[in-house]
């Protein structure tokens, strides 16, 4: 029974890539260590053995050229998947991502099509310190021409990765490092989850929590704890951060009248600021409390587990944020 089928998040990614490569000979992968080694987290494991070294390509440690390889190959008719290993490394390739991939179509008057997927691993929690733990998605969401996807479950991973590969625009697929081993239901057949469509993970009437990536699970844990007290939280996972499904978020805010946005990225200038602004623009009269934001403090990600566990938001912090949103007396 397909309902029984379970896969880890990392293998859901791998299966999406594998099935896309089977279906479309123009799909290929390139990146550091992805071939014989199978990728730093095993994300591309077994694919070179299956599809050959011409389609699963080991590259030099050259992030600009890796993304450039994808841009040039996409502009000339292939459907590349290029891997940047850690999200921090997008900074090394920023010209190719921001000035080239994102803008080529527009600058060329619409003539170029760039079906390019850039994959990377974001988030902290592995004591990987300040250059291997960042959540830089807000920077990418700020760039017109890019799409940004951040799955929180194995099911969403496969469906969203399949959609990224089918997408005719440059898309950044962010895997959360601490979700790689998470197991969940994944159908064997190929399926797509449309980009730009949020998922209501948990329905509730008292408060809306918007969270993505690993923070979805921390938010659900907080919501379950509060449910014991009769507080019903609605947890929304946007899944795609650009384009953002503001419609679903605003609709929920209008029902619950209270919203908390949660992310692992630093709070200042994070996606939570944009989501809060959208809600106050579109649902100001419905709000019974300011839109709350939970995010990391404004510092680089610290190394020591003692510091990092304090740094990354958790269910306890989210629970406190929800209680604060509920403190205000409604109209």
């Amino acid at each position, binding site marked *: 029974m397909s309902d029984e089928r379970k896969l880890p998040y990392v293998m859901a990614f791998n299966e999406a890539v594998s099935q896309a490569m089977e279906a479309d000979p123009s799909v*290929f992968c*390139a990146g550091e260590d992805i071939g014989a080694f199978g990728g730093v987290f095993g994300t591309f494991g077994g694919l070179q053995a299956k599809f050959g070294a011409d389609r699963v390509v080991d590259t*030099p440690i050259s992030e*600009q050229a890796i993304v*450039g390889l994808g841009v040039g190959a996409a502009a000339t008719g292939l459907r590349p998947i290029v891997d940047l290993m850690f999200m921090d490394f997008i900074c090394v390739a920023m010209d*190719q991502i921001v*000035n080239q991939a994102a803008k080529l179509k527009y600058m060329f*008057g619409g*003539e170029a099509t760039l079906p390019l997927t850039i994959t990377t691993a974001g988030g902290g929690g592995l004591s990987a310190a300040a250059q291997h733990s960042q959540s830089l998605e807000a920077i990418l969401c700020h760039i017109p021409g890019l799409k940004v996807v951040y799955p929180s479950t194995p099911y969403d991973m496969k469906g969203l990765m399949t959609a990224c590969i*089918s997408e005719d625009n440059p898309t950044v697929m962010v895997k959360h490092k601490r979700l790689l081993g998470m197991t969940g239901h994944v159908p064997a057949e190929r399926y797509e989850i449309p980009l730009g469509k949020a998922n209501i993970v948990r329905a509730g009437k008292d408060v809306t929590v918007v969270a993505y990536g690993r923070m979805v699970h921390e938010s659900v844990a907080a919501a379950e704890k509060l449910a014991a007290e009769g507080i019903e939280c609605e947890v929304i996972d946007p899944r795609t951060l650009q384009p953002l499904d503001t419609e679903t978020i605003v609709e929920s805010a209008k029902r619950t009248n209270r919203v908390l946005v949660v992310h692992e990225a630093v709070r200042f200038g994070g996606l939570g600021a944009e989501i809060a602004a959208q809600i106050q623009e579109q649902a100001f009269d419905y709000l019974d409390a300011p839109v709350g934001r939970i995010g990391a403090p404004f510092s680089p990600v610290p190394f020591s587990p003692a510091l990092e566990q304090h740094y990354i938001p958790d269910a306890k912090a989210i629970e406190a944020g929800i209680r604060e949103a509920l403190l205000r007396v409604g109209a």
Partner: protein
Amino acid sequence: MSISPDKQFDLHRRMVRIRLFEEAAGRLAEANRLPGFLHLYVGEEAVASGVCGALNDDDHITSTHRGHGHLVAKGGDFNRMMAELMGKATGYCKGKGGSMHISDLSLGMLGANGIVGAGSPIAVGAAFANKYRKQGQVAVAFFGDGATNIGAFHEAANMACALHLPIVFACENNEYGEFTPRDKTMAITDIVDRAAGYGMPGVIVDGMDVIAVHEAALEAVERARTGGGPSLIEAKTYRFYNHHGVQNLGLKYRSDDEVARWKERDPIFTLEDRMVENKVATRQQFEDIWTQLRNDIDNAIKFAEESPVPAPDQVLVDVYTQKAGAR
């Protein structure tokens, strides 16, 4: 010259088309009839023409901020080019790219580029796709001497060699990175010295001699097409005008003598002299070519000036491709 008379005329025509387009663009800019920046290719015509003359229509090139010459040499249409420079809806990029992003994907021209060095990694991608498809296409990355100092070039050259891709790195060494002379920004005299560091053959050619450039390009393109991997061509050339625009803006970074010496070696007039000397052409033939192409330019300016500007609602069009295309 082992290059056929027909090919000599072809290369000459490409150069004259570039010269006339650029001179016209310069005049229009001086008269404030072009918005934005303008980096003129005058003086360097032999490089784009000699290299693109060795390519097929379905081969790819990436270009630079000084990119008009590459598009003209690849067969670019004057009307759509001039309209783009004027920011018109009929331009190559519908007025959204301008001089620094002018492109024609149907001619394999993957765009002028406002970021120095950024074209080379994209050319590597085109070369990868060409190798992947196994249809014998090649890619050429055009770039200047200054671009070889930026990391993107190094990454691209190394990756192209590591993956043994069908690509030619065509360096236009015009001796200046913007306003700073090459000898202030690198400790070597010849860019070609860098080729060995990547494991590819490199050759220096006289970038004012279109035949010499063409012969070197034929060899490098043939090597790429037949599985021999990347090559580097360093063409020693010179920018007759400024880094951007026509005027010197009061800056004196090159001596009049130096400019005059290079202008004596004008790539178009020296080719004409040789072709007449070798009895391949007559002065009258050249007169007729210039007259006809001047007429094309005049028509292009007229076309561009009479073209509509883009409607304001076009700002949000083509940020994204709307349809999903994959299987």
